C-alpha cells in the first residue's frame, strides 16, 4: 500500500488512528518529513499503527499504565509530602533513530566525554587549559561545583566521568545539539530498560519485522565499568555497592532497580563506615570491605567531613578513603565543575584543545551574561531567549522568554544584572516532535534524548537512551518534575 503519508487521500478516510489528520505544525517531526511522508525508518511502525482496530492503541496504553503502578515504577515528588510516589508517564509511540545517525551520535558522545574527562583531570591537577587562556580562570574559580577538595586526586584509570547522561535535542533545522552534559549523578536509565520491557509486554505486535537494537545489556556494562575501576589488585572480585540517599529520594526506584539488575548491595550512608581510610559495610556477620561505590548522592551530601557538615545521608571519612586510593567512587566527586552552564559553553574549545579535533556534536549557541556584549544582547532579547541559571538542573531556575509574562522577564532581567555570572541564555529551540497518544488520536509533542555513556576502561554507549516528552501541548519542558513523560527509543539495526 502506498499510504503512510500523514495526510493524503481517501485511503485513510477510515483510518481509526486518524493519522490523516496529524499536524506537523511546522516543527521537525521525527516520523514524518517536510512533505508529510513517513520517514523510511518509521514506515513499518506506521503501517502497524494504521492496521490496528479502533481503540486497540488506547487499550495497550491503559495496560501499560496499569503495569507501571503495579510494578511500582515510580518517582518521588519533592515539595510534596514525604514518600508521594508517582508513575513516570509512559507514551506507547516510540521514538525512532536511524542506525546511521545513531553511529554519528555515538562517535560524537565518545569524543565529548573523552575531552570532558581530560578537562576535569586537568582542572584538578595542572590547570593547563587555564594557563593557556582557553578558559578564563575566574569561570572555574566561580563555578559552584568546583571542589578544591579534589585537587591532586588520581582516580583509578584517570577516569572521573564513569556514567554520563548527555541531553541532546534536535532543532527545527534538523541538526542534533548537545544541551547539557549531566556529569554528576544522571538518572533515568532505568526507564530506558523498563520502557522497552513495557513495550514488549503491552504492544508486542509492533516489534514484528523490525530489527531494533537491544538495550538490556546496560546493567552488565555498568557492572563491568564499576568493576574496572576497583583500586589496584587486592582481590579477585571487588565488592561493588550502590549508595542511595534512601527510599524518599526521587530516583529511589532507579537505585534499587539497578542494584537488583547488577546483583550488588544497595546501601545507605548509615550502612557504611570508614576505618583507617578504608570503607566497610555493616552486615549481619560484621564489617565487610567495600571496593567500589556507585554513589547516587550529590557531592554536597557525600561526606560531612569534606563537604556539607550537616549531611546525614553521607559517610564521614569517605573522601579521605577515596583520596588514599582505597575506594573508587563513581562518578568521581568534583566532576560537576563541567556541568556549570558557563563551562559548558567552552566544551567545543576543550575538544579542540585536548584532542585537536573538531567537535562532532555541536553545542547550542550560548550567551554568557558575564560578558558585557552578551549580557546586553540577552537583556534586549529576553522575549526570544531561554535563560537558565548556570548551576541548576531539572528545569528549575529557567525562563522560556517567548512563553513568559512581562513580569517574569523583568524578574529575570533583575536577577541577571545582580549576578551575571549565574546566568546564560540560549535561543529558544524548536525541539523536534514525535507523534504521541493524546486521548484517542495522535498529536505531535516535543522530545529530547538522553543517551547514557559509560567510561571504565573504554567508553560504551547503549543504543538510544531516554526519550523524554513534554506531554503538555506546546510545552518545551520535558522534565519529569514538570509534566514530562517518556517513550521507548528505538535505534534501528
Amino acid at each position: 500500500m502506498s499510504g503512510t503519508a500523514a495526510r493524503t487521500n481517501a485511503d485513510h478516510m477510515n483510518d481509526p488512528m486518524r493519522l490523516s489528520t496529524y499536524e506537523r505544525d511546522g516543527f521537525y517531526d521525527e516520523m514524518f518529513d517536510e512533505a508529510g511522508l513517513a520517514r523510511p525508518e518509521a514506515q513499518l511502525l506506521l503501517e502497524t499503527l494504521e492496521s490496528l482496530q479502533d481503540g486497540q492503541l488506547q487499550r495497550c496504553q491503559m495496560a501499560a499504565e496499569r503495569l507501571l503502578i503495579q510494578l511500582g515504577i515510580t518517582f518521588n515528588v519533592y515539595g510534596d509530602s514525604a514518600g508521594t510516589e508517582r508513575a513516570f508517564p509512559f507514551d506507547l509511540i516510540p521514538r525512532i533513530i536511524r542506525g546511521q545517525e545513531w553511529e554519528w551520535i555515538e562517535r560524537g558522545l565518545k569524543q565529548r566525554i573523552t575531552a570532558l574527562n581530560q578537562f576535569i583531570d586537568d582542572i584538578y591537577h595542572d590547570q593547563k587549559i587555564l594557563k593557556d587562556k582557553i578558559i578564563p580562570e575566574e569561570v572555574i574559580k566561580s563555578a559552584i561545583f568546583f571542589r578544591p577538595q579534589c585537587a591532586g586526586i588520581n582516580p583509578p584509570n584517570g577516569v572521573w566521568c564513569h556514567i554520563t547522561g548527555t541531553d541532546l535535542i534536535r532543532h527545527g533545522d534538523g541538526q542534533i545539539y548537545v544541551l547539557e552534559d549531566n556529569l554528576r549523578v544522571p538518572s533515568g536509565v532505568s526507564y530506558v530498560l523498563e520502557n522497552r520491557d513495557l513495550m514488549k509486554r503491552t504492544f508486542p505486535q509492533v516489534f514484528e519485522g523490525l530489527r531494533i537494537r537491544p538495550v538490556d545489556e546496560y546493567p552488565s556494562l555498568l557492572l563491568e565499568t564499576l568493576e574496572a575501576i576497583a583500586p589496584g589488585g587486592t582481590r579477585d572480585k571487588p565488592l561493588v555497592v550502590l549508595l542511595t540517599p534512601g527510599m524518599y529520594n526521587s530516583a529511589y526506584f532507579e537505585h534499587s532497580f539497578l542494584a537488583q539488575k547488577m546483583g550488588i548491595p544497595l546501601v545507605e550512608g548509615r550502612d557504611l563506615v570508614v576505618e583507617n581510610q578504608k570503607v566497610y559495610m555493616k552486615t549481619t556477620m560484621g564489617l565487610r570491605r567495600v571496593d567500589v561505590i556507585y554513589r547516587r548522592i550529590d557531592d554536597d551530601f557525600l561526606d560531612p567531613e569534606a563537604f556539607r557538615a550537616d549531611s546525614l545521608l553521607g559517610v564521614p571519612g569517605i573522601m579521605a578513603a577515596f583520596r588514599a586510593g582505597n575506594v573508587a567512587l563513581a562518578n568521581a566527586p568534583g566532576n560537576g565543575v563541567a556541568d556549570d552552564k558557563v563551562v559548558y559553553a567552552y566544551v567545543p574549545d576543550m575538544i579542540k584543545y585536548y584532542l585537536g579535533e573538531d567537535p562532532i556534536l555541536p553545542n547550542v549557541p550560548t550567551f554568557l551574561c558575564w560578558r558585557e556584549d552578551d549580557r546586553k544582547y540577552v537583556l534586549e532579547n529576553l522575549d526570544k531567549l531561554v535563560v537558565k541559571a548556570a548551576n541548576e538542573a531539572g528545569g528549575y531556575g529557567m525562563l522560556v522568554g517567548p512563553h513568559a509574562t512581562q513580569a517574569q522577564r523583568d524578574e529575570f532581567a533583575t536577577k541577571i544584572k545582580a549576578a551575571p555570572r549565574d546566568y546564560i541564555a540560549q535561543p529558544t529551540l524548536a525541539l523536534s516532535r514525535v507523534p504521541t497518544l493524546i486521548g484517542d488520536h495522535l498529536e505531535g509533542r516535543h522530545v529530547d534524548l538522553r543517551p547514557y555513556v559509560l567510561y571504565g576502561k573504554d567508553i560504551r554507549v547503549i543504543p538510544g537512551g531516554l526519550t523524554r516528552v513534554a506531554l503538555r501541548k506546546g510545552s518545551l519542558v520535558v522534565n519529569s518534575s514538570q509534566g514530562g513523560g517518556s517513550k521507548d527509543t528505538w535505534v534501528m539495526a
Partner: protein
Amino acid sequence: MTESLPLLSRVADSVYWLSRYVERAENIARYIGVNLNLQLDLPLAPAQQWQPLIDTTGDTEAFKERYGEARQDTVIEYLAYDEQNPSSIISCLRAARENARSVRETISPEMWAQINSMYLHIQTHDTIPQPERMLDSFREIRLGCHLFQGITDATMSHNEAWHFLRLGRKLERADKTSRILDVKYFMLLPSVKDVGTPYDDIHWAAVLKSVSGFEMYRKKYGRITPNHVVEFLVMDREFPRAILYCISEANESLHRITGTPKDAFRFRSEQLLGLLDSELNFSSVEDILRNGLHEYLDSLQQKMNNVDAQVRADFMNAVYQQQQRQSA
C-alpha cells in the same frame, strides 16, 4: 552460607519485618473471618464475640478510648481499616510494603509486585465491605498473604535473606497462635455450664478454624476436647501453625543464617531460641494445664519476645553498636 557476602544489617531488619507484617495481616484477617462465621452459629450475646479479638491484638485500652463498645462494625473498622492502629491490616500491609520497597534489590520482583498490589488494593477498598462481600474480603486478604508466601518460597533463592524472612514469619505465627489460644481459652473456660454442649464444640471449632486447623485436628484426634486442642496447637510437630512447629522452623533458619551446627550456639539468640525449642519438645499438655495454660502461654510469649529482641541485637543493630564503639 558463609562464603557468600552476608546481608546488610539494615536489609536483614527490613526483610524480617516485611514478613512479620504480612503474617500479622493474615492473622488479623483470619480472626475476623472466623468470628464472622462464629456469629452466624451463636445467636446469643454476639457482642461478647468481638471483645476477645481486641484483646488478642493487645490494644484493648486504645480501642476502648477511640471506639467504646466492641461491636462487629467497630472492631472490624479498627482491626482492618484504621490507619491509626499500627496493627490494623492496612497498617501492616503498608509497613510490609515500605519494608519491601527498601529491599527491592534483595527480594524477587514477583514478591514486590504481589505486596504492592495487595497494598494498593486495600488502599482503594478501605471501608467496611457490604455484608455479602464481608467474608470474601477477608478471605481474599488471607489468600493474598498466602500468595506472597508462596511466591517468596518459589521465586527467591533460599539464601540468608530468605531465612530472615522465614524466621520473621515463623516467630510471628507462633506468637499469634499462642495469643488466639490464650484469649479463646479465657473466654471459654468460665462458661462451665456450656461444657459438653454444642456451643462448647462450636467455640473450640472456631479456635481451630481460625488457624485453619479444624480438619487437620479432626484427622488426628477426632472428637474435640480442650486438652487435645491445646496439645495440637502448642506442640504438634506436623501442623504448620502449631507453636512447636513454627519455633523449630525458626530455629532451623537461624542456624542456617549463622552456619552454626544445629545443636550448638554461637550467638545469644541461637541459645534462647534453642532453649525454647527444647522446652516445647519436652513439655506435656498435662504439665501445661496443671500449671495453668494462661501462665504458660504468657511465659512463651515473653520468651519469643526475648528471642526477637536478641535476633535484632545480634544481627541488625550492628549500626548502633558500631556508633557506640566509636564514640566510646
